């Protein structure tokens, strides 16, 4: 294990609250406004940390554990997350599944904390969140599997210190420009699937509108209505880190910079993550939220894209 790889999670910890700021600035630009400052995410978190928390008498310890466990799970996911070609501090065979289920654990605790309040609105949001995650999880895992297979075929005899194609760092270190030349179509399908998963998990506009305050249409925001103070700061920070994780997964595919220098690889992907934040802002400005009944169809579409990519790479 080399010490430089710890800079990847460190970058995520420091830079991730910038992402919502960039998205909001892009949206403001499209609407012709000036928008909030780029650092608003940090200000919000700092302000919330200074506040006290209020707990309802009907809640139990689950409600207080929700944000803590959520943040812990996403922090562990960061340790497994490679930035493009630069490997993660921790990598082993099968860490794909651990990553998917760390994010699953985060969601599970958000959901039971929401159910713990006993509020009907939060139960509704919890039900939706779980319903949609059933559809996004297979899409995420199949996309990663298709990338692993594409990298394994494409890299051929190129021996790396991480030629293990079943760990996240191995998958991403194999995805060089030559793999793009051979299997670009499949990687594009994977990128499409991952983009939909990113929008659904973040959760951003075609699936959920983060700005809405009408509980009937909300998914994620409605689950955290009763959290306040430091708890809410942890939720905001966790959401920003989760957005960073999914953006890094997508940017790692789209930017095939695999040089010998870790700082070049990681820098290119971090640049890609910020570009993706701008793209999300553009999508949010140019699209309306889908009707709730149509969302499963979009997510099934993501699943179909990833199945298609996996089938094509398997049977070629």
């Amino acid at each position, binding site marked *: 294990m080399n010490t430089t790889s710890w800079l990847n999670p460190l970058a995520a910890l420091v830079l991730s609250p910038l992402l919502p700021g960039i998205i909001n600035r892009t949206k403001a630009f499209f609407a012709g406004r000036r928008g909030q400052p780029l650092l608003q995410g940090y200000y919000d978190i700092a302000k919330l940390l200074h506040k006290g928390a209020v707990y309802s008498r009907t809640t139990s310890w689950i409600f207080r554990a929700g944000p803590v466990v959520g943040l812990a799970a996403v922090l562990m996911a960061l340790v497994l997350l490679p930035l493009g070609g630069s490997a993660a501090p921790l990598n082993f065979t099968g860490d794909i599944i651990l990553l998917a289920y760390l994010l699953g654990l985060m969601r599970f605790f958000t959901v039971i904390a929401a159910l713990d309040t006993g509020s009907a609105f939060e139960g509704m949001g919890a039900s939706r969140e779980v319903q949609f995650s059933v559809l996004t999880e297979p899409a995420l895992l199949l996309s990663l599997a298709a990338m692993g297979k594409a990298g394994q075929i494409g890299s051929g005899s190129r021996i790396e210190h991480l030629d293990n194609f079943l760990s996240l760092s191995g998958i991403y270190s194999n995805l060089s420009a030559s793999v793009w030349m051979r299997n670009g*179509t499949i990687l594009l399908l994977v990128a499409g699937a991952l983009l939909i998963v990113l929008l659904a998990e973040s959760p951003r506009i075609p699936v959920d509108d983060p700005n809405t305050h009408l509980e009937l249409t909300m998914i994620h925001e409605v689950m955290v209505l009763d959290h306040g103070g430091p708890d809410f700061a942890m939720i905001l920070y966790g959401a920003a880190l989760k957005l960073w994780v999914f953006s890094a997964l997508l940017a790692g595919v789209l930017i095939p910079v695999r040089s010998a220098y870790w700082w070049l690889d990681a820098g290119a992907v971090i640049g890609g993550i910020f570009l993706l934040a701008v793209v999300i802002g553009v999508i949010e400005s140019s699209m309306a939220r889908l009707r709730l009944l149509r969302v499963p169809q979009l997510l099934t579409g993501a699943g179909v894209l990833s199945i298609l990519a996996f*089938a*094509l790479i398997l049977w070629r």
Partner: protein
Amino acid sequence: MELWIDCLIVLLILTNLKLISSSRLSACIRVVAIQGVLLGLVPLLVGSGDLTFRVILLSIVTMVVKGIVFPWLLLKALRSANVRREMEPFVGYTTSLLVGVGLLALAIWMGRQLPLPAPSKSPLVVPLALFTIMIGLFAIVSRRKALTQVLGYLVMENGIYAFGLAFAHQEPLLVELGTLLDVFMAVFIMGITIFQINREFDHIDTDRLSLLKD
């Protein structure tokens, strides 16, 4: 080169999936038009011979007929029938997508079983052709509106055509052009029929036509 062929085939597969997952009839017609244009590119990229005059002619005629003439005829029929959406199909849209994935797996499996007369440039052309035929058939049996069924028929024909195009080298030009003319006549007549059905009964739901008596 191989990358472009892959790209083309994946786009054709995606047009098929889009067709069975969208409810707006005009969007379906547009998808079939795009499929026609993409199909016109197939002989240029995948054909087993050199780029001869007849391959280019075939490609241009395909694009014009399938990409412009058919959609125009169908859009006209759509306007006269005054329907916008396929309401309540026999199989829902999300289920249709999943059925589509199943059909794709079946097509890939079948494509690998078939012995071919000549090796084609890409192993995916035959599965694509089989998949397109199956999707066309599926659209015919799972939708109510006469117009969607015409689209299903067109897509099925596209599949057979793709199968032929992969081996266009061996096939006489006359046969290809004859098929195109046949399909043109069929779509022309079906367009008129849809108009007539709509004028007579005020709808184009084929399942409600089953009770017709003399």
